[in-house]
Every structure is written in structure tokens, then in C-alpha cells.
């Protein structure tokens, strides 16, 4: 065992002091064989199948954590998009399907289950339509279910009519969960170029190209990258910063690979991917914003932030790709505003505006994530915000997402507490101008030309 003391202490320090952990082991379960003309039977099958496969997920996670000494924060389940499964049932009300998912999540002891999902980037099937109608009530009536929809892709363009409908879904969900500060919307996300192997909620689901069951792992580690750059100090140039991030990302990713393989072995299933996203938490030091500030901006949101984030995201991918041949999911840096203490502070001091955040999403791995806006934000404004984000993803052939929470009864600058991993948010001002005509027009924005890239 040729390890030096330095290597050993480095690993121990990462885990003990720099909050290195495996953010999630997500078990993907195909539910297509649960389709049934009778909706009740379909729900029975869904519940039974998920519980059969996911029953020992917690135990396996705890076992790996104990054996290897690496904390595994969350164990989760992702399923086939429910709109595919429910299509055979020809029912307008998909809330019972959400209840079945919720009950199964509870039986397996997982905190979130993703898969109340529809793909509508080109248009709606009957089942997609039913799912859209059911989302607000499903999120109100269940605790663990997360919902996601695909509204645009680079190949298909942007479905503006679907975005307009989705804006109404967001507002209705916020209204139904008003007593919890619109918390339902924190479990609701829309995508451009949705990935089919994403282990992170709220967007977790298993696409139709995935195997019967699969283990996907999401690693974290902003704290480790932050510590490495802090140790580097402000003198070395940006090549040195990129190199440091790459080396650190390599080590973090290897932990994900180890845990993913071990989880797959113990569950007897396929190991899918490691998602090498830097996923912040509200915990002190576990912040992507801190990394950007250490790279060299006064506050996240100041001029230079997008450039720093571009360096960070790219270096994480390069280091991660060297460490694992199974990199997938979203992979990059997450910038969920309410879940990152540094980002919240940047909003509070006025450094980070919604406009700057949007610019940052063109180089980060996801998009506008956990952004709070006033409860009286119009559907047209939401449509505009989502469409802008989808356009960034479509043109740059990358995944972008929007998870936005219109907080009922709150105006710009006010604070809302969701608690736990979801953190605290300061309501941001979307501005007083909207896009009523664009919202009303509907239709699609055609797919972009993928040549002449300037």
C-alpha cells in the first residue's frame, strides 16, 4: 500500500474539514412495464416495483458509508417519466400516480423521488396534457415527489406554448403551497436538453434509453475545491487555478466512481454515471460562490463572474472526465441561489442581479436554480424568464433549467426561509417590463442552425 502520509491526511482532511461527500446515490427504475389500462392497477404496479427494487437502497448506502468512511448524504429514486407510463391508462387525473410514487418513496425511506415528468418540447400527448394539469395538486398532496418537464431541445427548438402553460403551472403550484412559501415550486423544474441520467432532484428521471435499473451517483465537493484554491492563494495565474481545480475534481470524481461501482455491485445492478457537479449546500464553506470569489471577483455577480465560472465549470469537467469514463448527468457547477450561503449574501448586498445570474447560466451546468421572485409575478414574465433560459440552452447545445419560485405575498428584497437543503432566499426583482405579446403568441421557436458557429 504505497501511500504517503500527505496523501492519507489529504483525504481525511477533505472528508473531515472540507465537507467532501457523495451528494446522492440515485437508483433509476424503469416503469414502462407498469402501464395498465386500469389506472389503479398501474399505480399498484408502480408502487410494488419501486419498493421491490428500492427497499434496500438506504441500507446499501449506509453500508458503503460505514465501510469506506465517505458520507453519502442522500439516497434517491428516479423513474421513467410518468406521462409515458400513464398513457395506457387514458385518465385525465394523474395525481394518484404521484401518490403511488410518494408512498413508494416513503416505504423505501428516500427523501425525494423524481419522475413525475413529461417531454413536451415539440408538443403534447393526451398523457402529457393530463400530467401538466395534475402537477400543482400532485406537488401539494405529496411530500417526496419531484416533477420535471422538457420544454426545449437544440434539435426541436423551443415550445413556447408549453412554456406559457408551464408558467401557469408554476403560479398554481405556488398558490396551492402558499402556506409553505410556495415550496411546491422547489420540486418543479423545466429543462432545455434534459438529460436522461440526471441523479439530482428535482430533475431526476430515467429516460427511455436507460437500462431496467441503474445506479447514478452525484458527487459534491465545493468545499474541497474552495480549500484548494484558498491554499493556492491570490498570486498564481489562472492556468494554475484551472490546474488546481482539475486535480481536485479528479479526486472528488474518483470517490463518486468508487461509491457508484460499489453501490451497483451491492444492489446487483448496472452502474450508470457519475455526475461531477459541484453542488453547494447552505453549510458554511460548501459554496460555489466562495470559489468564484477566491478566483478573484469581489462578490459573485461582479464583472468577471461569468469568466470565473466558465473556468471553474470547464476545469471540473476536464478533471472529472480523466477520473471516470462514466461521466454524465449535468456535470459542472450548480448555482442554486437559495442553497448557497455565498450567493444569498451576494443577492443581499446587491451584487447579484437576476440578469447577471442569467448570464452566468450560459456557462454553468444547469441554469436558473432556486430563484425566488415576487408572488405577484405575471405568467407572461415567467414565460419570458423561462424562454430566455431555454434559448441559452438551445443555441449553446447545453442543458439549461429553470426552477423558479414565485413566493406568495412577498415582494422584492424580502426573505423566505424554506429550511434544510433548500435554504433561504431573498426575493429578486424581475423588473417592471414584461413580454405580454410574446407570451400570447405561443407556437414554437424553430431549432437553431448548427453550423456557422460564431
Amino acid at each position, binding site marked *: *500500500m504505497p*501511500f504517503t502520509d500527505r496523501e492519507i491526511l489529504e*483525504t*481525511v482532511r477533505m472528508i473531515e474539514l472540507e465537507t467532501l461527500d457523495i451528494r446522492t446515490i440515485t437508483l433509476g427504475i424503469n416503469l414502462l412495464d407498469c402501464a395498465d389500462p386500469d389506472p389503479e392497477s398501474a399505480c399498484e*404496479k408502480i408502487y410494488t*416495483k419501486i419498493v421491490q427494487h428500492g427497499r434496500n437502497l438506504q441500507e446499501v448506502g449506509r453500508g458503503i458509508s460505514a465501510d469506506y468512511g465517505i458520507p453519502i448524504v442522500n439516497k434517491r429514486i428516479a423513474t421513467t417519466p410518468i406521462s409515458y407510463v400513464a398513457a395506457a391508462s387514458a385518465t385525465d387525473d394523474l395525481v394518484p400516480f404521484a401518490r403511488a410514487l410518494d408512498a413508494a418513496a416513503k416505504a423505501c425511506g428516500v427523501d425525494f423521488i423524481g419522475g413525475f415528468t413529461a417531454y413536451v418540447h415539440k408538443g403534447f400527448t393526451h398523457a402529457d396534457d393530463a400530467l401538466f394539469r395534475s402537477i400543482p395538486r400532485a406537488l401539494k398532496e405529496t411530500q417526496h415527489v419531484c416533477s420535471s418537464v422538457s420544454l426545449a431541445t437544440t434539435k426541436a427548438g423551443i415550445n413556447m406554448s408549453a412554456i406559457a402553460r408551464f408558467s401557469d403551472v408554476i403560479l398554481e403550484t405556488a398558490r396551492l403551497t402558499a402556506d409553505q412559501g410556495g415550496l411546491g415550486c422547489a420540486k418543479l423544474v423545466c429543462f432545455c436538453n434534459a438529460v436522461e441520467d440526471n441523479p439530482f432532484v428535482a430533475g431526476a428521471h430515467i429516460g427511455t434509453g436507460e437500462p*431496467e435499473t441503474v445506479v447514478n451517483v452525484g458527487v459534491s465537493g465545493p468545499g474541497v475545491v474552495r480549500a484548494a484554491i484558498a491554499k493556492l492563494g491570490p498570486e498564481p495565474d489562472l492556468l494554475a487555478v484551472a490546474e488546481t481545480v482539475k486535480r481536485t475534481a479528479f479526486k472528488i470524481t474518483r470517490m463518486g466512481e*468508487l461509491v457508484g461501482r460499489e453501490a451497483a455491485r451491492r444492489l446487483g445492478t448496472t*452502474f450508470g454515471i457519475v455526475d461531477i457537479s459541484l453542488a453547494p449546500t447552505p453549510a458554511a464553506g460548501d459554496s460555489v460562490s466562495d470559489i468564484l470569489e477566491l478566483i478573484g471577483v469581489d462578490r459573485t455577480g461582479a464583472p468577471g463572474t461569468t469568466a470565473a465560472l466558465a473556468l471553474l465549470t470547464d476545469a471540473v469537467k476536464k478533471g472529472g472526465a480523466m477520473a471516470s469514463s462514466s461521466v454524465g448527468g449535468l456535470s459542472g457547477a450548480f448555482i442554486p441561489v437559495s442553497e448557497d450561503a455565498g450567493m444569498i449574501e451576494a443577492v443581499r448586498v446587491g451584487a447579484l442581479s437576476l440578469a447577471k445570474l442569467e448570464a452566468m447560466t450560459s456557462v454553468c451546468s444547469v441554469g436558473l436554480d432556486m430563484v425566488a421572485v415576487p408572488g405577484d409575478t405575471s405568467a407572461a414574465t415567467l414565460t419570458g424568464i423561462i424562454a430566455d433560459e431555454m434559448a441559452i440552452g438551445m443555441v449553446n447545445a447545453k442543458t439549461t433549467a429553470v426552477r423558479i419560485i414565485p413566493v406568495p405575498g412577498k415582494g422584492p428584497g424580502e426573505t423566505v426561509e424554506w429550511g434544510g437543503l433548500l435554504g433561504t432566499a431573498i426575493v429578486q426583482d424581475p423588473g417592471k417590463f414584461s413580454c405580454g405579446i410574446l407570451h400570447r403568441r405561443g407556437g414554437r421557436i424553430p431549432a437553431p442552425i448548427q453550423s456557422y458557429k460564431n
Partner: protein
Amino acid sequence: MTRFLTSEDVRRASGRVIEIEEGTIVTAQAQDTARDAGIVIKTRSGSYSEPAPSRGPDAGQAQRSLPHLPEPPAEGELASYTGVVITAAGRNRPGVLAEITAALANSKASVLDISQKVVEGYFHIVLMVELPPGSGFAQIKSTLECMGGPDDYVVRVMHERVFRFMHRV
């Protein structure tokens, strides 16, 4: 393809006994419905018990292709040993190292490498250890990690594979 027997299937069934194919999953609701109606669900070979989950056609292949990263040699003498890295830190006092190594000796573990430093009354020990075949990692981990205490010292036991994955290409 997973086969299911749902409560609807039970309600539609005629007769007091439903015979299902091997590998069929009977939903919880179907089991309740059958019990309430006094219907027996059985397979050809006997009474029903839930089949092991079928993880799909890819699972077997995936299991075989897993280890190709920095793993210890698959053959030879080393292969059957479990490598363990132990770190301990705390207030220095006579006998700390002896306590830890005595626990290791009890478990028939052999120490491959050891380093210790004391700075201003606090010690730090790193031990690389091999466990003989058949001796349980979990057992030695729980024994060692229960030693010391908050005012004395803390021990951390980790599988060697963690370090191999993190520090070797």
C-alpha cells in the same frame, strides 16, 4: 419484463386458488384483496413468496465489467488481503500507540507502515495495515473507532481502496 398480479386480477379471478407463473410479483393490494376474499395465491412449486428483484438484462454484464480502475492485483498472495488505513489523533500520553497496536494484534492484522508525530502535546498516527483473509473489516473498524474518546483521541479506519481511487491514476 416484470409480470404483476394486481387486486383487479384477483377480483376478476374465478375460484378459490390463483396459480401464478414463477417470477410474478403480487402487489400488496392484491395480497390484501385475496386475503379478504379467502383466495389463495400460489405458484406451481408452492406458496407465493416475493421473487428477487430482476435488475434487467444489462445487470450481469455490468457486474462483470466493473473493476478496471486502480485495483490491487487480482491474483497472487496480495489479492486475499484487505488493506486498511488507520489514522488517529489526540492528546499525547504514554501507551496510546500500544493500545491501538494491541487491538490490531488481537485481530491478527499486520502493520505494514507506521508514522507518528507529536506537536505541542498532540499526537498524530498513520498506520497502514493488512487484514488476513477472513477477518472482518467491519469488526476491526468498530473496535478501533470505539477506542479513545472525546477528551482522549479519535481513530478513523478506512478501506485502502478509498486512497487508491483518489490518489492513483
